[in-house]
């Protein structure tokens, strides 16, 4: 530890020990924590409620940043499943790809993923009053993107797609009843869940997208204007209660 900067070698460490060390560092006023040799340890960043920067080298395990409220996590590698599970605030920046259910039930803060993500990303993300979560995916997503989405903003930039290649995700926005999804490029109708519709972007949409894409570009050293020059698709829910009449006769 020096000047509020801590280094922890996570090699062979169990996740309980690692997270205890993290809490200890934060309680002792750490401002920047560097974790090296991370390999599969779960729940990193959970139960931390103060702004602190955590740099992760390696492959953090499932539920990275779960219930996190305030810290900023930067991963130099890939994240596994359920990154940002029920996160309340803070930021996660992943210089790689992320697994299934990224941003699972996130209710605040931001997640930026440089490359592709797995299934059910943004499942049941939600917003309330001032709390509004944002997930920005640089690559493309697998199926059930934004499933049961209840609020927040989900952006998929498709930068890993080859020229002319389209997003292949299907069941996009199945059960969606709040929030908005922006996809760079086009999707066919069959790729959408029954509960969403594609609508034209308005000025407010472009302003929001510009802000998020600029942040994304700054994190990963990309050209924001080039990314924004392509057409986007905006998806919104058809109803705020799609299943409200499911059992009503």
């Amino acid at each position, binding site marked *: 530890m020096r000047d509020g900067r801590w280094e922890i070698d996570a090699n062979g460490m*169990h*996740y309980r020990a690692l997270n205890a060390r993290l809490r200890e560092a934060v309680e002792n006023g750490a401002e920047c924590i560097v974790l090296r040799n991370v*390999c*599969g340890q*779960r729940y990193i960043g959970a139960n931390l409620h103060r702004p602190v920067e955590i740099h992760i080298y*390696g*492959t953090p*395990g*499932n539920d990275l940043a779960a219930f996190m409220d305030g810290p900023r996590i930067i991963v130099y590698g*890939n994240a*596994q*499943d359920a990154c940002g599970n029920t996160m309340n605030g803070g930021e996660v920046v992943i210089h790689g*790809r992320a*697994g*299934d259910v990224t941003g699972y039930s996130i209710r605040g803060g931001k997640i930026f993923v440089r490359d*592709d993500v*797995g*299934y059910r990303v943004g499942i049941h993300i939600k917003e309330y009053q001032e709390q509004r979560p944002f997930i920005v995916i640089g690559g493309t997503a*697998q*199926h*059930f993107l934004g499933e049961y989405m209840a609020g927040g903003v989900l952006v998929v930039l498709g930068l890993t797609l080859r020229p002319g290649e389209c997003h*292949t995700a*299907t069941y996009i926005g199945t059960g969606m009843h709040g929030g908005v999804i922006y996809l760079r490029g086009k999707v066919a109708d*069959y790729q959408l869940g029954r509960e969403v519709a594609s609508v034209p972007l308005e000025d407010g949409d472009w302003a929001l997208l510009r802000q998020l894409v600029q942040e994304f570009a700054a994190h990963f050293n990309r050209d924001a204007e080039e990314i924004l020059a392509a057409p986007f698709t905006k998806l919104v829910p058809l109803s705020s209660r799609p299943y409200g009449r499911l059992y009503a006769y």
Partner: protein
Amino acid sequence: MCGLIGIMDTSGRCFSGHDIVVGISNMEERGNGLGAGFAVYGCYPQYADCYAFHVMYTRPDSRSQVEAFLREHFTWVHAEEVPHQPVTDLPNPPLIWRYFLQLPDSAHLSFQTKGRVPFDEAECVVDRVMRVNTAGLGAYIYSSGKDVGVFKGVGHPQQIAEYFGLEEYSGYLWTAHTRFPTNTPGWWGGAHPFGLLNWTVVHNGEISSYGTNRRYLEMMGYHCTMQTDTEVIAYAADFLMRRQGLPVEIAVRVMAAPLWDEIARMDPEEQALMRALRQVYGPLLINGPFTVIIARQGEMIGLTDRIRLRPLTAAIHGDRLYLASEEAPIRLICPQPERVWTPVGGEPIIGRLGESPREEAVWCVESSLYTCVS
């Protein structure tokens, strides 16, 4: 929950159990100590032409009866207790023996082929395995292939690996499992892998179609005795790919059939094939969340259910193909693989002996479909 991992060297180079133990042990949270196991291919080169039966005796007094049966129906090449550490902190390990056996030339005389002609050696072995397992002796043949061994029990992966001394074994294809039983008992026979002939299966998930699958397989002569859903996948693999002779790419379309709306978007020939598969083999659709690694001599197949309700990560480095529930265990063994990716649900990842592993394996599916149709 459960965790699984498979490593295959497609060049056929053998390696010890060290890597697979490191990998499976990394996923500690995916198991709870109520079952772990390993399968290794290429581990019995000195008996490569023998059926290697691993037999678990939950009642030691049944050994003489089983051995009398094996002596009557097989040529006895070698037998021994499966070596294990004298420890242990493992609760109640059963007696486990292995038998290296061949079918005598006269086997066809004593085996009723039930209308299946000519005599089929594999059918004869399956029949005898099922006879022992259903005899009510508390004896279970849970590994019955050639040059392959299953080592499993109740414990954490590291404990089971130490118990059987797996660092001493070597093979070109290893799979491993750590169990977190949710619906069925954690007993030695219920640990994964499940094996029949050369097939072994490790599985994460739960099979809601188990009843349907089991009844169908029973009609085909397969009897479930291990009290766990995964068993049906091993028998379905044997039935579809060995007995029915379907290529892997077709068999996975039976077990993880594309959804009907997906089929509706296929071109007419492929649609006809998919509809035919669902009509003919409907009872072998594996429903519910699953990730499996199915292996046989020279082949490792990773597959998830069609909407991927359980995870699978694949990686390639040189001649090696890695499949695992998570990416971290792969990176622990191979820190910088050339390629890491997440396969799409229902798409098999296939490693074959003598073929460089490639991600594009999934795209070969289409061409093989048409080969099968024509």
